């Protein structure tokens, strides 16, 4: 899949990338083998209700979608993040960046490239190597009026900042009785890379998801990366924005006009009716790859990039499950205690009556990510596994 050499990912094909309310993809509906069909099919009326209900939600970002974009420009994901950050910094002088090598070096993944030259060394602050303290410093600055963006050079390094992220970012608004808000964004690359070794291949969303008071979002495309970055900065809540080491060079055409996405919403990537696949971050692209095979074989998966890891968008997820009655979660977290574990529980709690079978989950192995390529590949979910699992589910074999 990936090109040799640098960690590249496939270029997204626009036709698979559809925002909500877009038309449905036509796919071949030839015989798929025995399907266990239960529950009412999605009628035209309920489909209409669904799309109008989407508008009933309190405040959602009215983001221009690609089908209506006037022109747009092609951009790589890291640059989309940078664009979003730069726009917010230009718009609001209290937005500042704190992290290691974010300034003169331009960021170890170039997300802050050029920003120090444009905004100065104090707004794009190069810190010494002390994650707990500079994260806490970002929190103190946020409490007193700034909007800080703290970068973990690798998400894993933020384990050192767990004290501050849990006690102060997550809980301080509550323990102060609502007196201090902490409009901080904590971001950085995580996930399993290409033979980076165990410590650089961590999935911190597992660890932070329990902390009350935090919001967590994961970006997966240049489009949602920029929109989520802007939304996270504008939010008054502490938001953790998870980026992925291997997605920074994804290329996509994004709108020229300004847009901000909704932090709490999931993204319908591909409408379908046979099975709901919930995924996020890099696994989205593995799912899309598997979907090509599945579509060829006559299946019609509905793919949702959940984007909001905490809280879950139960509306988008629920509507899908009510339609397909089968759900597969594909995640990069480890089996134990990951986002998939929480999502399964939420689905069982909320949509039990609509399920034909148990919610399935494909996760990484509970193994420190090995260095060797063959072993590393074996720890994460691969597209072939996704294909097998969906076929089994649609054929009623699980």
């Amino acid at each position: 899949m990936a090109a040799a050499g640098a960690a590249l990912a496939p270029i997204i094909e626009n036709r698979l990338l559809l925002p909500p309310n877009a038309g449905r993809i036509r796919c071949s509906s030839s015989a798929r083998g025995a399907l266990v069909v239960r529950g009412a099919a999605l009628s035209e009326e309920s489909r209409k209700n669904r799309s109008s209900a989407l508008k009933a939600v309190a405040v959602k970002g009215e983001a221009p979608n690609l089908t209506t974009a006037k022109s747009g420009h092609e951009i790589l994901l890291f640059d989309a993040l940078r664009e979003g950050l730069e726009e917010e910094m230009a718009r609001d002088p209290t937005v500042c960046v704190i992290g290691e090598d974010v300034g003169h070096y331009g960021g170890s993944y170039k997300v802050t490239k050029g920003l120090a030259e444009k905004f100065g060394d104090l707004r794009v602050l190069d810190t010494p190597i002390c994650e707990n303290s500079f994260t806490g410093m970002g929190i103190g600055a946020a409490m007193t009026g700034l909007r800080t963006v703290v970068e973990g050079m690798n998400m894993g390094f933020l384990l050192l900042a767990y004290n501050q992220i849990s006690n102060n970012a997550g809980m301080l608004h509550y323990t102060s009785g609502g007196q201090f808000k902490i409009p901080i964004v904590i971001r950085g690359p995580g996930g399993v890379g290409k033979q980076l070794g165990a410590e650089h291949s961590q999935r911190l969303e597992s660890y932070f998801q329990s902390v009350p008071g935090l919001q967590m979002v994961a970006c997966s495309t240049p489009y949602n990366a920029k929109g989520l970055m802007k939304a996270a900065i504008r939010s008054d809540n502490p938001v953790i924005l998870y980026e992925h080491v291997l997605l920074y060079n994804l290329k996509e055409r994004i709108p020229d006009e300004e847009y901000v996405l909704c932090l709490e919403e999931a993204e319908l990537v591909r409408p379908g009716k046979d099975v709901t696949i919930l995924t996020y971050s890099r696994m989205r692209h593995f799912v899309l790859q598997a979907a090509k095979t599945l579509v060829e074989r006559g299946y019609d998966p509905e793919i949702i990039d959940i984007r909001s890891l905490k809280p879950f968008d139960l509306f988008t997820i629920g509507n899908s499950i009510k339609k397909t009655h089968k759900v597969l979660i594909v995640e990069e977290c480890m089996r134990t205690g990951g986002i998939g574990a929480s999502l399964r529980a939420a689905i069982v709690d909320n949509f039990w009556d609509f399920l034909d079978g148990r919610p399935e989950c494909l996760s990484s192995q509970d193994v420190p990510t090995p260095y060797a390529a063959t072993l590393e590949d074996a720890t994460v979910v691969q597209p072939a596994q996704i294909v097998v699992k969906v076929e089994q589910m649609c054929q009623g074999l699980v």
Partner: protein
Amino acid sequence: MAASSLASRAVASLSPSISTGASRDDAGSSSVVGFHKRSSAFTGRRVRISSGHGSSAAHGRRSCVVAATAAPVKESPPKIADIELVTREEGLELYEDMILGRCFEDMCAQMYYRSKMFGFVHLYNGQEAVSTGFVKALKKDDYICSTYRDHVHALSKGVPARQVMSELFGKATGCCRGQGGSMHMFSKEHRLLGGFAFIGEGIPVATGAAFNTKYSREVLKDLSVDAVTLAFFGDGTCNNGQFFECLNMAALWKLPIVYVVENNLWAIGMDHFRATSVPEIWKKGEAFGMPGVHVDGMDVLKVREVAKEAIARARRGDGPTLVECETYRYRGHSLADPDELRKPEQKNKYAVRDPIAAFKKYLLENGLASEADLKAIEKKIDEIVEDAVEFADASPLPPRSQLLENVFADPRGFGIGPDGKYRCEDPAFTAGTAEV
């Protein structure tokens, strides 16, 4: 030693004849008498620090005798009229603040044993000179950041006693709506940034507030912002990584902050000397290029002198200062601590250096106040504290509906429910019965 003026100094030696050792040995003498009018210690003479001699009781701290190396300045012996360290008004204000701190904490102990307050309660008795000396030298816009031993810092900064007592009783009228408790006092109005249970975790927060001042001035170009931040913490914290990391950053960027160490020699049951390879905490300032100052924390006027100097230094943009206040807590670490490890000799040594008794003596001896004045203040404070208890007693407990209100500043953070509406729009949410 660096040639710059950032070399460590020990300010407590206000005259060559007074050393920190002497004030420990002369258990009975008041260490406030014998002040000289003198120039700022920060621009003053070089001092040499010798160690090793001087008495040390079984648990006494290692002597840190400070002596001047330059020829002593020939000054005439101080006359009472020369001593102008406080005006009468200032003196009464300081006295009232210390009495408030002491009285309030004593009342906390009573209330705790009457099951009106719960959990971990850490009292400040004996350390009043540090809070009063420092916080009363601040302006209203300045920030302070504390630890779990934060009641008196809150009171000194201006948080009403009613609000602090209510918070301790867990009532809805508490400064944090009853959600924080003893260890989490916050006040946006009075710029109290907490109240932290984990030692060390407040120091970066304070450093961030100081960063904000610098940012406001240099990036936002708002020169009306000149807030200084004080970070209070103890001796145990000075072995923690966040302490060192923040000293480094504050010195690097010349942040307007003062790091105030309340060295009361004990971290629960851990003797400072058993925990620390180099017990002189003030020395550690030099490692980061900031002045490290040691002061007698049982003497409110000495603390105040150092405080004014350090705060002024921060405010004019010269950077941070590390101030180690030698102090002592008369009670255990918390109300649950049986306090069996501290020897009676040590406790007695510090009991006779009670900062309130010493300052009272100073005020009376220097004609700044009469017995009647001080009695009036004590009575006033008694009434304030009684009133605080009555208010807290009469206040309502937080209702169930309060449970979910402050989890997020933006309650959309609870997400979108299955029905497409934001969870926070659910009426069960405001009733506090929604499941999240």
